[in-house]
């Protein structure tokens, strides 16, 4: 275990933060609420300062809750008027939450796709109709990146697209701003594309998981209808921003990609399963079979046929599932101990208009996730938003789903810095552009995104939700 001074200090701050509420008596907050506050503080500090990996913090959160807040824990074995403790299975069960299973299905599918080069060939085939004009090539790259990242991880999509764009970049003049435009278009499109489906990126899972704890289930189709149009608009705008800021000098790029789909039996099976699963997901509202149930189909078939083998299972990104599960689990106790509500009622929300609150939540989410993990940002904000609505503090015009969506979507709109998202980090590592290019264009996209979130939350989402 390697630790440096900064990490040790961070851990110390976290532990002190954890201990303090035990010695306080905060009026209006239940005893259990104090404990939940302790857990919230240590989690928030660990997630923000990252002395340990963020998934490790999530695992710890689950343990702390089982240990201190569950019915089987040491502090609250009895149901009292103030607090009726959840069973420990509630906290542990977040690991098998339907949204986690949905993600598992997504991981397995994406893995199989990568193994059989489906993503690469798909890209090459789809890129052809966009011709050789650099403007349209960038558009093509962005559309394909967004499409893929809606179903695969944004990061893996970006890495794959780098293998596509690096040869293109190598063919252009070193002074041509086109290079910057192309290199920026990929991470931006990947970040934005992740918003489009429930499995696009983990913050979406946090939102859906939190809502399902409230008894609100969002169908795959419904999410796509809610988020899809926003993705299209923001993506198109980003394309315009990139063209304007980094105007291509050359007017033609020779493209000579050949997509060759593998034709062996396993590959064909993967194509069929991929296509069928996606089709079943996007038509959830027609047939009514839950997307997480459908997600088990590819997992099962790929395991039965040996395409998903023992090593494949071992190499799945389990840490992401723990990360999301810990986040959902934290939300449970913040809610049930009354902590979230206590935080909320300390602010006189009724003086703010819904528009103002939507903008504030969106802005806070965007700013936070520029510096923190997007999932962590959503995790920390969602419980607050939930109690804001369930406590009635916010008044009319402020629905649970609406504000959760605002947070979930906004968390993915942060792309100003290399550290904002892993796709940003990959893109800048190529050395094709400088941080200032990313910051400037990412800022414009972020502001536009904020505006769009507000407009959609005010005018479009209410129509769909009602």
């Amino acid at each position, binding site marked *: 275990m390697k630790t440096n001074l900064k990490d040790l200090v961070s851990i110390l701050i976290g532990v002190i933060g954890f201990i303090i509420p035990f010695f306080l008596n905060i009026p209006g907050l239940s005893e259990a609420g104090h404990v939940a506050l302790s857990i919230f503080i240590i989690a928030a500090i660990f997630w923000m300062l990252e002395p340990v990996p963020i998934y490790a913090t999530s695992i710890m959160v689950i343990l702390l809750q089982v240990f201190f807040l569950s019915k089987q824990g040491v502090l609250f074995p009895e149901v009292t008027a103030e607090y009726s403790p959840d069973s420990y299975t509630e906290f542990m069960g977040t690991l098998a939450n339907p949204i986690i299973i949905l993600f598992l299905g997504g991981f397995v599918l994406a893995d199989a796709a990568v193994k059989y080069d489906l993503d690469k060939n798909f890209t090459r085939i789809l890129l052809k109709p966009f011709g050789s004009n650099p403007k349209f090539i960038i558009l093509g790259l962005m559309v394909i990146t967004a499409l893929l990242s809606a179903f695969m991880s944004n990061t893996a999509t970006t890495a794959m697209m*780098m293998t596509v764009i690096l040869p293109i970049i190598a063919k252009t003049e070193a002074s041509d701003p086109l290079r910057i435009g192309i290199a920026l278009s990929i991470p931006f499109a990947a970040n934005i594309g992740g918003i489009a489906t429930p499995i696009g990126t983990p913050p979406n899972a946090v939102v859906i998981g939190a809502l399902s704890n409230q008894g609100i289930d969002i169908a795959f189709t419904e999410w796509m209808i809610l988020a899809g149009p926003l993705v299209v608009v923001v993506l198109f705008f980003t394309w315009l921003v990139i063209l304007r800021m980094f105007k291509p000098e050359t007017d033609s790029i020779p493209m000579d990609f050949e997509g060759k789909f593998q034709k062996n039996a396993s590959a064909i099976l993967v194509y069929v399963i991929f296509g069928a699963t996606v089709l079943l997901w996007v038509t959830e509202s027609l047939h009514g079979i839950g997307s997480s149930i459908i997600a088990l189909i590819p997992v099962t078939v790929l395991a039965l046929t040996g395409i998903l083998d023992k090593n494949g299972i071992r190499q799945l990104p389990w840490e992401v599932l723990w990360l999301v599960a810990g986040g959902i689990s934290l939300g449970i106790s913040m809610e049930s101990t009354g902590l979230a509500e206590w935080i909320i009622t300390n602010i006189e929300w009724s003086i703010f208009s819904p528009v103002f609150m939507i903008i504030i939540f969106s802005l806070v989410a965007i700013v936070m996730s520029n510096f923190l*993990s997007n999932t962590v940002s959503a995790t920390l904000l969602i419980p607050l938003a939930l109690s804001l609505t369930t406590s009635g503090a916010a008044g009319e015009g402020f629905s649970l789903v609406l504000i959760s969506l605002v947070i979930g979507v906004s968390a993915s709109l942060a792309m100003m810095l290399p550290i904002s998202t892993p796709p940003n980090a990959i893109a800048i590592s190529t*050395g094709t552009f400088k941080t200032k290019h990313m910051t400037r264009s990412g800022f414009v996209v972020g502001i536009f995104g904020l505006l769009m979130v507000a407009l959609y939350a005010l005018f479009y989402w209410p129509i769909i939700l009602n």
Partner: protein
Amino acid sequence: MDHKIYILIVEDELEVMDALVKDLENFEKIFPVETANDTTEAMNVIDYILDHGHKIGLILCDHVLPGKNGVNLLIELQKDEATARSKKILVTGQAGHEDTILAINKADLDHYVAKPWTEQELQEVVRDQLTDYVIENEKNLLAYMQILDAEKLSEEMRKHKMTDH
């Protein structure tokens, strides 16, 4: 990065050494270059680098050296766990058939550069070998994208299930 990955050049002729160092200038920003004139000095340099917690990514070695020859050095390094993974290139005009076979079989030689080489040829070989080295040995590949084969590194990241968080 808490450790550096070194390039080691073992060569006794001063002019050749200068030419090698000059051709590898581009890599120095990330991969510091160390030099040695014979195998004894090479071993000392290697020990020094390893003792300081760094690694040897690549060894460019002449064959005909005072004292022990280059192939023997490479074989010895291949036996040592700390340098077994280092990429090994023989840069020579004079290694005979048998020595070369020995180098391939016993030292797991990664490449053979015949003298005289061209700058471009050498840089390509070094870029390829270092790319393989970091893919096989390093966790964070992003740091090498600018200097090494970015396409190959990206492909590796694509296959390694990189995730969002």
